[in-house]
């Protein structure tokens, strides 16, 4: 009996050891090179969207086999860090912040020859090297407004100055209409704060974040404090409902589509939901740029958000080939404009004629800003050397919530400086 038990234990240990040591290479036999691809899902970017986009590339390159990974939530960067730590770093990732990964040598640096098709090939560079394909431009935010609710409050059109915005918000509130729809978290709350910071900080100093990295400016400086004070003021006046901070991104978008508020400061990707037959609301949606005090045009935008490739990918060439093909495929680009409202930053690309009205209006606003040289970085959404230090973006989002829930502005700004110091 004892011998049987001992033999069993030895056999079990041996089997465990053999299982642990063996690796299953599914690419064997078919000759295809397998790569892993980390995606994320939103109401716009559905599983079907990703599957179709991947298929377009693998149809073109049948020698590449893609294993799709999906981030469990919107925070795909943190998930990528967890995968890296556990030895499962994906071969290809999309819209993951390269900060940290790049400096540690985890990402492949694209060469100039590989970036010739991109309009802004050096965008998002880290110490001069580009790790994330600068694939598309997003304006963050555009203020979408519910024309029906505006009419109910006798507002004839969008505000042109910040003072007019406050007047309009007061009129909406007087009619028992919530002026601004917000939610909690980076993508649901960040764009509103980014709008204020664009007009009050970046419009005055487009290099503000570089200066912060160099220690020349601080969050506690008057310009930033003034912008933070504006956000706090919107909440204090009841134009932003602090109870809405418990909404996640999808619920926030739905709240605006359900007519639960008049204005929605959001990235231009919202145009996809505004245009989609499945989600298009009954009311008409207008859009305007976040107004500056003096009414001058300021459009915060970010170009990047594309694919990144692991420097240690087992099939590095296949990963690179897949990433570039995914990013430059005309079908994928067209679909990204329709499904996610993106403005592809690819040379010679023009969006398809059948894009929706919201997309076209946003695209027009952006091109007006480009012509007027009124584009500034989108605060909190920048990448690489243009962005905040790793870990500070999350504190910035928490700070925005603190401002809305009534924490003193000066204290919030000081705490951001403290967090910056900790991260540096």
């Amino acid at each position, binding site marked *: 009996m*004892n*011998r049987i*038990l*001992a033999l*069993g*234990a030895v056999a*079990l*240990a041996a089997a465990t050891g053999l299982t642990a040591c063996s690796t299953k290479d599914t690419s064997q036999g078919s000759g295809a090179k397998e790569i892993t691809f980390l995606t994320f899902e939103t109401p716009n970017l559905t599983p079907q969207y990703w599957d179709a986009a991947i298929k377009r590339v693998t149809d073109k390159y049948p020698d590449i086999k893609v294993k799709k990974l999906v981030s469990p939530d919107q925070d795909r960067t*943190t998930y990528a*860090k*967890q995968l*890296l*730590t556990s030895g499962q770093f994906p071969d290809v990732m999309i819209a993951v912040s390269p900060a*940290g*990964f790049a*400096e*540690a040598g985890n990402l492949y640096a694209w060469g100039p020859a590989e970036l010739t098709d991109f309009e802004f090939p050096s965008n998002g560079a880290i110490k001069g090297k580009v790790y994330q394909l600068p694939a598309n431009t997003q304006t963050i935010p555009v203020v979408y407004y519910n024309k029906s609710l505006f009419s109910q409050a006798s507002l004839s059109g969008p505000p042109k100055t910040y003072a007019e915005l406050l007047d309009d918000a007061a009129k909406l509130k007087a009619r028992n209409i919530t002026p601004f729809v917000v939610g*909690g*978290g980076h993508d649901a709350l960040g764009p509103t704060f980014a709008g204020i910071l664009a007009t009050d900080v970046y419009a005055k100093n487009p290099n503000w974040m570089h200066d912060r990295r160099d220690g020349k400016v601080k969050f506690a400086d008057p310009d930033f404090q003034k912008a933070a004070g504006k956000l706090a003021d919107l909440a204090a006046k009841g134009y932003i*409902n*602090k*109870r*809405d*901070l*418990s*909404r*996640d991104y999808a*619920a926030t978008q739905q*709240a605006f589509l359900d007519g*639960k508020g008049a204005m929605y400061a959001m990235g231009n990707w919202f145009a996809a939901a505004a245009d989609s037959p499945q989600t298009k609301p009954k009311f008409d949606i207008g859009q305007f740029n976040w107004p500056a005090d003096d009414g001058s045009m300021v459009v915060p935008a970010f170009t990047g958000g594309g694919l990144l490739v692991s420097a240690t990918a087992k099939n590095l060439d296949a990963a690179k080939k897949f990433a570039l093909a995914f990013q430059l495929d005309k079908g994928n680009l067209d679909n990204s404009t329709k499904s996610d409202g993106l403005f592809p930053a690819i040379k010679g690309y023009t969006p398809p004629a059948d894009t929706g009205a919201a997309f076209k209006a946003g695209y027009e606003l952006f091109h007006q800003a480009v012509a007027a040289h009124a584009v500034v970085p989108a605060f909190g959404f920048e990448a690489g050397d243009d962005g905040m230090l*790793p*870990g500070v973006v*999350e*504190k910035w989002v*928490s*700070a925005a*919530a*603190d401002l*809305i*829930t009534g*924490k003193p502005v000066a204290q919030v700004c000081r*705490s951001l400086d403290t967090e910056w110091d*900790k*991260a540096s």
Partner: protein
Amino acid sequence: MTADLAAPTRPPPLRHPPARRRRRRLWPRLTHFAGFAGPGVLVYVCFVLAPIVVSVGYSLTNYNPFNPPTKYVGLRNYRLLFTDTEFLTSLRVTTILTLIVVIVPNVLGLGIALMLDRRGWLYNALRSVFFIPVVLSSVVVSVIWTRLLDNDGLLNQTLRGLGVDNPPGWLSDPKYALYSVGAILSWQMLGLCVVVYLAGLQGVPAELHEAAAIDGAGPILRFRMVTWPLLAPALTINTVVLLISGFKVFDHIQVITHGGPGTGTTATIAFNVLQTGFVANRRGYASAMAVLMLVIIAVVSGIALKLLQRREVEL
């Protein structure tokens, strides 16, 4: 005959020398032991002990995988923790949450167990109903409660229907968010307490109650003098399990509030460990937090266990 009896008796010859015989007896026992305990010990060493040892090692360094090189910093991380307002806030949040989680399910669980300590299909069904939240995934529970408690959720819609113009932001107002999370955790843990107390109640001999009743004790006195002392082991189990669960809370926070609203209002130590380690990339510092959390849980649970075991009586 006499001479035969007087002759010294010699032990029967041994088949094997004594040492070899002992070895043969020991070996089967060892293999027997290894066969049963080996796999468990192996799993424990690999997945519990080794990570703890590695974490302790990391906690003595400035390990940041994105900012090499890693250097030994001694106890600096631990010293920093005691002046880090973010960590101290998470310690306070965790303590409050743990107190809620230990007290509320214990008290309500005992009350419900007393009500369910009857025979009949209805009581059996109710026991199952109360236990269902325990077996549900904490993520599922969190998503359901988020939908119920957010500003447009069922609770606030009901309150508005009843004429409350501005119902509280249960998850979005820093004044309420922590207690809302505490209530959700208590709801999920309640079933466990009910089951453990029910098991304890069913172990109380009926004769003791009868004897107390004959002596003139009413229901309250019988509960205080008979039932409650004999429920001490159940109280010990519930309290220690809830203490450990309360100190480790992470998943509910991650799904429901993500540590907010605002900075750290519901951020527990476990949540803070993940944020520090995987968002801010300060793995060495996060490891120090994790090690300190382990020590706190071990010490508090140990003290609670000792104190509660003193109350236990044997039948």
